[in-house]
């Protein structure tokens, strides 16, 4: 219950005089009407409370009906609120869907890196390390879901490469992509080929605790024998020397790189400590940070969610500390406009780090 203006005024006068106007007892008296009645659960705790509870017990018979009615009334209001809210949220979703559609028409990449680069040019700064959360839809027919996921990964990678973001990490809860590292790499290189033509940027794809897969690595070149990749990849590796923008490194992470990796670290540290190889005082934030950065990934600058609301779904907790989290309300699906708006938001945001 908020305070009545009169009481509030009294209190503030007291406060201004440095609490000399009222004695503590008077202050208690002033506040008493605003406090809830002593909770029944504390009745065993003190005598006064138990007597109060007894008094309430006596009143119960008389107040039973009233309480019942009040409850019904509350349930009714609750239902009313939720009916209105679901109507409201449908409208909101529809509105956002239309707005997103307009955005996506307005900002479209047309699969040309030049357009994306032009979009990005006006931004004050770009994230060095971008992270996205993708979800595997439809887990029963995993074939279709996986196909779609691969496509999304490739799209995002291509946008990043066009915008000039050197590092991308892709989070997907189940970690299904880790089992298809080569396929993912192929999908990404194909997409980049599609965007950039013959001189597409080189890609290195890795997952924690797995060997990285580079586009210059022999297995990829042989697997792409049907296309003209053998020549293009060699030319891209030549470009690689010229500018760092021509390379993109992608990390695939999943739920097990979050809590579980921290638990694994704790296990290792515990074992080392048990063997007296480590003093527990040496476990510092820097040590943990260095280890987790080494084994999983560094802290991303920007995290883009394509889900309708913010829910991290097990994203590595250590790394997300100062990451700017971007999402578009009620958004469905992966779209370039979300990506672009995320970058724009990031360029505007200021970092203060608690200062």
């Amino acid at each position, binding site marked *: *219950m*908020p*305070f*009545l*203006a009169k009481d*509030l005024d009294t209190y*503030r006068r007291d406060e*201004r005089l440095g609490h000399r106007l009222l004695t*503590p007892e008077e*202050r*208690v008296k002033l*506040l008493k009407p*605003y*406090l*809830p009645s002593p*909770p029944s*659960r*504390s009745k065993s*705790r003190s005598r006064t409370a138990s007597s109060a509870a007894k008094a309430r017990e006596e009143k119960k018979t008389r107040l039973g009906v009233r309480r019942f009615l009040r*409850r019904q*009334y*509350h*349930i*009714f*209001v*609750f239902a009313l*609120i*939720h009916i209105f809210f679901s109507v409201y949220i449908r409208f909101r979703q529809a509105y956002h869907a239309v707005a997103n559609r307009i955005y996506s028409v307005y900002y479209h990449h047309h699969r040309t890196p030049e357009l994306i680069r032009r979009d990005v040019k006006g931004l004050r700064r770009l994230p060095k390390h971008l992270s996205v959360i993708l979800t595997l839809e439809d887990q*029963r027919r995993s074939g279709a879901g996986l196909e779609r996921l691969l496509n999304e990964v490739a799209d995002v990678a291509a946008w990043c490469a066009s915008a000039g973001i050197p590092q991308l990490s892709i989070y997907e809860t189940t970690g299904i992509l880790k089992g298809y590292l080569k396929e993912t790499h192929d999908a990404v290189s194909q997409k980049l080929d599609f965007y950039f033509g013959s001189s597409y940027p080189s890609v290195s794809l890795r997952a924690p605790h797995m060997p990285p897969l580079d586009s210059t690595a022999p297995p990829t070149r042989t697997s792409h024998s049907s296309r003209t990749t053998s020549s293009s990849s060699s030319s891209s590796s030549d470009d690689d020397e010229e500018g760092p923008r021509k390379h993109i490194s992608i990390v695939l992470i999943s739920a097990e790189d979050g809590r579980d990796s*921290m*638990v694994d*670290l*704790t296990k290792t*540290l*515990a*074992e080392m*400590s*048990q*063997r*007296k190889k*480590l003093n527990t005082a040496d*476990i*510092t*934030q820097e040590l*943990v940070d260095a280890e987790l950065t080494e084994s999983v990934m560094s802290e991303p600058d920007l995290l883009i969610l394509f889900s309708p609301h*913010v829910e*991290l779904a*097990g994203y590595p*907790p*250590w790394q*997300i*500390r*100062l990451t*700017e*989290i971007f999402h578009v309300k009620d958004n469905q699906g992966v779209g370039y406009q979300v990506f672009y708006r995320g970058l724009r*938001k990031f360029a505007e*945001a200021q970092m203060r*780090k*608690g*200062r």
Partner: protein
Amino acid sequence: MSDLYLSRIRSWFLSSPPAEWALNRLRSTLIGALSQGPIPLHVAFEMDGNRRYARSHKIETIEGHHLGFEALARVRLLPTTPSAPRSTQTDRNLQVLEVCYKCGVKVVTVYAFSLENFHRPKYEVDGLMQLAKHKLEQLIQHGELLDRYGAGVKVLGRLDLIPPDVLEVVERAAAATQHNTDCVLNICFPYTSREEMTTAIRTTVEEYSTTPRPHSTPFSQNRITQKILSTQTGKSDPLEPISESPSPTPSSTQLDDNDDAASTATTLHSEATTAKSGVDEPVAIYPNAETITPETIDRHLYTAGCPPLDIFVRTSGVERLSDFMLWQCHQDTHIFFLKCFWPEFDLWHFLPVLVEWQWRQKQKARDERPRRRVKQA
């Protein structure tokens, strides 16, 4: 100018008794109604924007913190407002904690002070410290009133970094409300989540690398080995059942632990030699490090014993977690970033959050039901 008049008229109207009465009825109805639905058990607030609020309203920074702190102090029974002119602004302010507890939220966690905040200008840090001390002192002064809420106060964070005079008050406040376990207000005082996680890891490691002495006390390994040796030498068969019947549990677990720890590598023979040499070498028996789970780390966090975090609210439009509750909120916590500054945050900002959360819970339940049916079929 007209803006000022408008706000005057508005505040005059809102503070008139009938309007006040109506608003109160409306509030209690809404709260009563919403508590009919699912209720989050644990809500975290990141109180952000005090300084920006102060700047935009052209008041001192520390005043902004005062208004922000009202979030706690006020609802926590003491309507402390440092200065009157903005009374209406703060009047609507922050019944949020009270709302939470009335709805049935068990734990509310607020981010009051970050370790990074120590980098701020000294006068501001000192001001904040004094503010905290002052409010907590008042809280203790009215200790019996806190009991009415059944609320306990806990201060989480690096307590060793708090100035001693403030720390003393902090400890008194925690002690005074210790017996209230119905609901908890966690104040993260000098806190960062990474520090919390590091501390949790360190304490876990410490726990797993200290030898639990009482575990091995009732049976001396030396005696057992000696007995085994003596049976091996050929005599006293009747001893065997006696030594075997009480020993299996401790000795077997100890052996397991030794195997896994692999550190001491004390085999029977080496121990026999030490026993012979008469040196009572402490046998390090460590719990198996492989048994560490996320729950183990959970138990060592500052928020140990709190239910999982359901709602995370950050005000002032900044869309970052900023080192707050990282471990707790990265799973299925619903995170809300609100545009308003913290001193403006009130019931009317919080209720939509709560309603939306309830709606999503319902939605989720509806989504899961058909899936379960499919699985059964």
